[in-house]
């Protein structure tokens, strides 16, 4: 972390990104609001407080790398890229449309700031391992941040990657789990129980940190603890407890909003709720 992060800015940005997410998915007529909203505070903390990056120079060598392993949360990444200046905000209205750079899942060939295409779950941690090792070979001080969903942890490849990171001492990597407890078919505990996520990573040799994924100050403390642990020979994971659909009352905690666009009436209600939060943050700021 460079300077002390601006908590107010991150909160405002998270509120704005939630609004962007709902509006772009509503306009697209399809998409994944639930997991985009649950990750909004985490992504805002990364892009507006934690990561070293330069939107004017997306391939700046000294940048930290972000990998959105849960690629279906593309809208929240696109919102962060638009709000930080990688892409023009006008693109947000083209999400999922023919000819748009904003594909249903992130395409690194099309969007500046997207390091690698994702969407097929369970692959981001392996990719992040590779990026982190490549950075180490180049004696780079850059870090890699990999955001995963919790349902995604059901993919076996995640645990191949977890084993690999510990074995190879990938200590310039921070994995983040957006632990909202829900997946398409319902509660993770009903579909395929994840058990104790933190204990599992711990057993694989990771340094583990837990945080409230919607409390910006708690998130920043967690990232600071991660920062301190980096370079210590072990990879670090932050397990964030979150609420799927966070910020839109009727979406919160409802698996039905994993991959469904709101209709006109629902969009209006969601926008009203999120605008109120945004205004509150602006007044506070």
């Amino acid at each position: 972390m460079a300077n002390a992060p601006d908590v107010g800015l991150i909160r405002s940005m998270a509120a704005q990104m939630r609004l962007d997410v709902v509006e772009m998915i509503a306009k697209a007529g399809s998409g994944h609001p639930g997991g985009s909203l649950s990750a909004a505070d985490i992504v805002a903390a990364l892009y507006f407080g934690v990561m070293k990056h330069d939107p004017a120079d997306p391939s700046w060598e000294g940048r930290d790398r972000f990998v959105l392993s849960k690629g279906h949360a593309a809208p929240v990444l696109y919102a962060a890229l638009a709000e930080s200046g990688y892409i023009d905000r006008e693109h947000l209205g083209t999400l999922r449309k023919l000819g748009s750079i904003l594909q249903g899942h992130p395409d690194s060939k099309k969007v500046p700031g997207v390091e690698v295409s994702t969407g097929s779950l369970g692959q981001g941690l392996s990719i992040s391992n590779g990026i982190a090792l490549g950075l180490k070979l180049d004696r780079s001080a850059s870090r890699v941040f990999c955001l995963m969903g919790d349902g995604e942890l059901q993919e076996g490849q995640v645990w191949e990657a977890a084993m690999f990171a510990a074995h190879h001492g990938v200590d310039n990597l921070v994995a983040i789990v957006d632990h909202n407890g829900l997946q398409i078919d319902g509660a993770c505990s009903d579909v395929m129980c994840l058990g104790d996520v933190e204990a599992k990573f711990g057993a694989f040799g990771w340094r583990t940190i837990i945080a409230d994924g919607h409390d910006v100050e708690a998130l920043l403390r967690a990232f600071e603890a991660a920062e301190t642990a980096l370079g210590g020979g072990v990879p670090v994971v932050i397990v964030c407890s979150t609420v799927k659909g966070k910020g839109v009352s009727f979406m919160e905690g409802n698996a039905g909003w994993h991959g469904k666009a709101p209709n006109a009436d629902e969009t209006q209600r969601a926008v009203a709720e999120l605008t109120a939060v945004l205004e509150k943050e602006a007044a506070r700021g």
Partner: protein
Amino acid sequence: MGDKATRAAFGETLNDLVADGFDIVAVEADLSKSTTTATFQEANPERFFNAGIAEANMVGVAAGLAVAGKIAFTGSFAVFATGRAYDQVRNTVCYSDLNVKLAPTHSGITVGPDGGSHQMIEDIALMRVLPGMRVLVPADYNSAKSALRLAAEASGPFYIRLGRVGVPQVYAADFKLELGKAYVLREGADVTLAACGVMVAEALQAAELLAVQGISAEVIDVASVKPLDVETLVGSVRKTGRVVTCEEHSIIGGLGSAIAELLGEAYPVPLRRVGVKDVFGTSGEPDELMVYFGLTALDIVTSARELLE
């Protein structure tokens, strides 16, 4: 079966490439001695990463290394690197157009005694359909060295199909394989024998046998299965009017299919496919299996004669 195996080129060529200044890394899945990436590990330990028995992660890690600017080669056996890690190759390597070079060994039935579970005869098909993937099937050790270097020099995904057993030398040590180029190894007028990998040597032998019978066969090494050398292949069948494709692979989806697709549109001629006929492999010695699956020079001769009758 012959001289050096194509896999023998793998580790040592990677070492040569590093010595020549290429930013090469290799990710292996517990088969470094078999694939010869152990040779690379020995000389370049900091550039070698073993993923253990975890091929999906192997390909994912290689993809990440490529994102970080490295030229990333992967090892393992053809059956695992393409089959088990298919989604990783498709959705991460090819969809992101990454600089990952898959060069698994132990392709085809010449794996031998390990049997059908380990004899990969669908890999050319699986790799060929991926947008952006280039597919090279070298005929001998020297061609394999050149194929590996070519893949390192060119940007983007490559599949280089390497084999376990020794194969007869076809090319001189200074051979330079070019992407999208097929090599006319013997000129002929009556039938074209289009082969790749270990079948190139069989096709050359078949041409000798056919010559004795008064049949003039043109032998083409189609080392670049994707992209194909349209000009050379179409030019040859324009002259001969018939073609036998020869591959140590299923007759479905591989070289035979690629050439049938090409000629079906560009210049239809009678065609026979010598290859494994939609069955799995089985245990046996490589030479026995070549006979068992109908992949010898004599089988090529039979197919060529059918076309001429």
